[in-house]
Every structure is written in structure tokens, then in C-alpha cells.
């Protein structure tokens, strides 16, 4: 029982991180109907910038404090993500208005390749460390209730808390601010939003900026766990089943989908994996999501798709 709960908890915390990556996808899809395959590249790009600037800034300015260096690096990386968002709108999206969804998807694949190339040219292609002072040692909880207690990885716990805080912040941003309302208006109907004077291009820049910041935070957390390297882009591929499970247009869907996928992945690896040779995590998540899709083709929280001739 203790072991089961431990696995469950681990799954939930990993799931929180998946939702964080999936959230970036959902934001962009909601506001522009673009399925952003570049989210993985953005995670890598943000993490690379963060890791390198945290290393460079103390060298340039002579600041000793790790905290200051990290905060400064985060600011610089955030500014870079803003620049990326602006450029993407300027150079790509603006020229592809009214194209089919498949074309836009391909364009984001192009952006992904480009960002991977630029990121590694600017920041190097080795493995870098992000050290934001996360505690590595696990703690034991509930040791009176279960025999041996439950091992909780502190690092995962903090990461999950950061992710949860970010999600809460985004929800407030979407619900309470006027920009958030404008974003939701654009998501509902591009034309109607434009006709009441909401500038579409600015909304796109904002939403890509937000997605960039989400990617940066995701990259920071994953990077401090696994190190910043090229394989970080595959994290995005692992977040995709979360997306189709939760529904492409739903923020709560991304979170709950993330939790389900995180738990499903861990439980399947531990309990089914040994029977078939292990390493089934990645496709099991997809098959799980597919199973859900067969019951609800729009995902758990997606908008109902109505076809009219």
C-alpha cells in the first residue's frame, strides 16, 4: 500500500510538470488555433538561455550571490522569450493568416527546427546545469501510518508547487484582467473580437509571450532535474497525450489530463512494465489518451465538435 501510494504521488508530481508543458500548447491553441509543435523547442531554448546566463552573469558583473544570478538570468531569458514571441508573430504567423490547420502545424515545426538550431548555436550544445537551489534529498512522510512510510522527493514536490502556482496565476490572469478577457474573446471568435477593436496581432504576441514564459519555467524545472540538453525537446512529445486527453482548448483539461497521464504512466511502468519488457511509459500514455479519445473524441474538457455541411 505504501509503495502504491508512493508511485501514485510520484505520478501526480510528474503529471504536474507535464501539465505545465501542455499548458503552453493550450494557451496558443486557444488564442490562435495554432497547434504549436515548437513548444518543446521553446522549452529547450528557454532552459538553455537560463542555464547559460546564470553561468555568464556572475562572470561579467562579479556578482557572487547565486540567487541574484539566477533571478537575473531568469529575467534575461524571459526577455529573450518575449523577443522570440514577437518575431514569431512578425515573421511567421502574420504571413499565414487563414491557412489550414495542417499548414500552421508545419510552420510551427519549422519554427521548432529553427529555434533548436539558433539555441544551440548561441548557447552551445553540451549538457548544462541549472542550479536554482532545489533540495535533492527525499523526505519520509506518514511513517506512522504505513510501514516504512512514503518517500517523497522534495525536488518534485517543489516543482509541483511552482507549477500549481503558475497555473493559478494564469487562471487569475485569464479571468480577471482585461487582457485575459480579450484573449478569451479572441479564442471564442476571431472575427467578432476584431470587430469590437481587439487587435489580433497584439493578442498573438501576448499569448506567445505567455507560452514562452510557461516554457521557460517548465524548462527551468526539468533542466534542474535532468540537466539542460537536446533531449529536453522530447519532454514536449511526452506532454502531447496530456493535451489530447484534456482537450486542446481547455486549461483545466491540461492540468487534469497531466495528472491522469502522470499517474497512468508511472503505474503502468511499475505494474505492467515488467510483464512486457519495460520502457512502456511513453507509448502507454498515448494509448491511454487514445482510449479516452475513442469515448470522447474532443478530449475530456474539449469543446464539442459540431460538423455542419
Amino acid at each position, binding site marked *: 500500500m505504501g509503495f502504491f501510494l508512493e508511485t501514485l504521488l510520484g505520478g501526480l508530481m510528474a503529471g504536474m510538470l507535464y501539465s505545465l508543458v501542455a499548458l503552453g500548447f493550450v494557451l496558443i491553441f486557444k488564442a490562435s488555433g495554432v*497547434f504549436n509543435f515548437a513548444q518543446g523547442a521553446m522549452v529547450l531554448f528557454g532552459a538553455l538561455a537560463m542555464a547559460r546566463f546564470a553561468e555568464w552573469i556572475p562572470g561579467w558583473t562579479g556578482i557572487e550571490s547565486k540567487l541574484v544570478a539566477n533571478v537575473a538570468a531568469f529575467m534575461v531569458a524571459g526577455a529573450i522569450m518575449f523577443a522570440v514571441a514577437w518575431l514569431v508573430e512578425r*515573421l*511567421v504567423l502574420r*504571413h*499565414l493568416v487563414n*491557412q489550414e*490547420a*495542417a*499548414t500552421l*502545424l*508545419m*510552420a510551427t*515545426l*519549422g*519554427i*521548432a*527546427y*529553427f*529555434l*533548436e*538550431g*539558433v539555441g*544551440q*548555436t548561441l548557447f552551445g*550544445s553540451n549538457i548544462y546545469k541549472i542550479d536554482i537551489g532545489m533540495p535533492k534529498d527525499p523526505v519520509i512522510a506518514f511513517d506512522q501510518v504505513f510501514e516504512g512510510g512514503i518517500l517523497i522527493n522534495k525536488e518534485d514536490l517543489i516543482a509541483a508547487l511552482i507549477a500549481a502556482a503558475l497555473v493559478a496565476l494564469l487562471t487569475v490572469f485569464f479571468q480577471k484582467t482585461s487582457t485575459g478577457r480579450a484573449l478569451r474573446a479572441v479564442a471564442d471568435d476571431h472575427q467578432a473580437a476584431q470587430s469590437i477593436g481587439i487587435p489580433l496581432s497584439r493578442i498573438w504576441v501576448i499569448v506567445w509571450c505567455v507560452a514562452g514564459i510557461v516554457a521557460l519555467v517548465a524548462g527551468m524545472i526539468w533542466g534542474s532535474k535532468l540537466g539542460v540538453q537536446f533531449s529536453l525537446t522530447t519532454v514536449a*512529445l511526452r506532454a*502531447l*497525450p496530456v*493535451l*489530447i486527453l484534456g482537450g*486542446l482548448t481547455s486549461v483545466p483539461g491540461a492540468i487534469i489530463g497531466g495528472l491522469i497521464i502522470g499517474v497512468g504512466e508511472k503505474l503502468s511502468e511499475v505494474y505492467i512494465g515488467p510483464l*512486457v*519488457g*519495460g*520502457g*512502456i511509459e*511513453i*507509448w502507454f500514455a*498515448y*494509448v491511454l*489518451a*487514445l482510449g479516452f*479519445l*475513442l469515448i470522447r*473524441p*474532443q*478530449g475530456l474538457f474539449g469543446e464539442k*465538435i459540431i*460538423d*455542419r*455541411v
Partner: protein
Amino acid sequence: MLYRENGQFKTSYRADQQIFPIQQDRIFIGLLLAVAFVVVPGLASDYLFRAILIPFLIMALAALGVNILVGYCGQISLGSGAFMAVGAYGAYNFFVRIPGMPLVPAILLGGLCATAFGILFGLPSLRVKGLYLAVATLAAQFFSDWMFLRVKWLLNDSPSGSVGVTNLQVLGWPIDSAASRYWFCLVFLVVMALLAKNLVRSAIGREWMAIRDMDVAAAVIGIRPMYAKLSAFAVSSFVVGVAGALWAFVYLGTWEPAAFSVDLSFRLLFMVIIGGLGSIMGAFFGAAFIVVLPIVLNQVLPLLASLVGVEFSTTAVSHAELMIFGALIVWFLAVEPHGLARLWSTGKQKLRLWPFPH
């Protein structure tokens, strides 16, 4: 002047329905085939065969298959690499497990394995559409990545995880020199392209296109979506599977699952988009573009850098390749969303009137 079709009257339905109704097209295709079969093998060097021509032929075949599914039936697939893998490993198993198995039937049986796999993973397409399906097809990709890494039986219990074939021959003719490999792939490509071209002109091809353009409307006028979608998955994955078997047998020789990774799926999709969705010709253009581009960049970039006096390392080249690749894709999509095939048909249209503009 040269490309003028007035005076070419069709007096029977047969004449009206042939693949190339314009005489100049027939002559051009005939010349092209003659060049491909006779002239090229005489002139090409070993390097040219191995680095460009053979990959081009096989990738064109794969792009043809992907185009049937994505371009003609509108089912976006990111799992084409998986279908290639299934074709390759299927053919491998038939080839090494059955004593005296001839090469060509083994490859075709590999294609049939891919068909079964394609139908299985095409089943969600009956419920799920568009971008959801695109993500769902990734399930096929990751499943095959896992399967050919972990299920040792499929690898003929090879301990290293990589498998290989040797001693290829057709009816006693060995396929070992570069030119014979080229001919072998070329025959497959020409036959399959001809079949595909005819298939998309037939009733079933029209059903696919109706489903692509508007599936609800197509269902209303009596096209069965299930039959149309699954047949597109079946035909497409057969062609892609055969291409996969050729890629493994003829081009790689020895391979492991990483040869058919998700990156290959993306590349196949690029070929189809850059070449032109819903066009047989486009598959050839797209494949040529994607195969040749990295090689050209590899040659040109260090040369340009040395002109300016900068040293260009191999990692820098690979990063620059990624960047240029990405930028080109975006540029293409913005400038010519219908791909190179559209440029080709525009060119033909202009030729009809040449030298007069109207």
C-alpha cells in the same frame, strides 16, 4: 510553341482517360524514364548513387505513400516512420526466417505487415479528426520504437538490437553494386508511382478526396467514411512499408530502430508539404528537395565560411542546417503553400501560351 495541345483530338473514351492525355507529356515522361534507366547509371559516380540517388528514390516512394494518406485523404499522420519500420522489420523477418525466401516477395510481404499495422492505427481516425488524429498517430510511432527495441523475437533474437541483411539477389542477379541497387529501387518506384497515379484517378481516389474536402458532406452523398479512410490507411502504409523495407535492405543494410525515429516521420511530412499536398509529382519534388538540401548545405556552408575567413565546425554546420531547414519550411509555407508541384503546373500553364503572354 513546343507545349501546345491544339490539334490533339480525343476520339474515344480511352483516349480521353489516359494518364497523360497530352502528347508532349508522354514524350517527356518517356524521355525521363529513358534517362533514369539508361543514362543516369552510365554517368553517375558511386558517391552520387549512395548519397543522393538511392535515398532520393526510396524517400520519393515513402513520400508517395504519405501523400496518399495526408494529401489525398486529409488524415494528417505523424507516424509514417513507424510504418516504414514495420515494413522493414516485417520484410526482415520473412527474409531470414523462411529459407530460400526471394527478395521481392519478402519486401512486398513487409509492405503487407505495414498495411495491417496501418489499419490498426487508422482505426481511431473513424472517431478522431484533424489535429487530434495527428497527435494520436504519434502513438504508432512510439509503439513501434518500443516494439523493435524490446521485443527480441522480432529482431530474430539479435543481442545487439541491430539487424542486417546480406546477399541480396533477384532471380540469381546479385544486388550489390550501387547501380544495381539504383535500378532495383527505380523499378519499385516507377511501378508503384504508376499504380498510385491510377488509383487516385479512380473511384476510390475520388472518395478519398471527398473525405478530405469535407467528410460530413461526403458521408451525406453516400461515401462510407470507414471504408474510404481505412483503405487510404491501408494503401498508404503498404507503399510506405515497402519504402521502409527498401530503405533498410538496400540503403542501410544494417539498421536499428533509431533509423525510423519520429524525426523521419517529420521529414516525410515536410517532403509532402514542400512537394505539394495531393499530387503524385509533388512527392518526387519534395523528396528531391529534402534529400539534396542537407548535402548541399554541408558542402556550401563551409565553403562560404572559408571565403569570409571563418572556420566552420561540423556541429556549427549541423546547427546551421537546422536553422536553414526551419526557415525554409516557414518561407515555403508562406510563399507557396501548395508546394513545388504548384510551381510546376504554373510553369506548364505558362508554357502553353509561350512566347505570348495571353
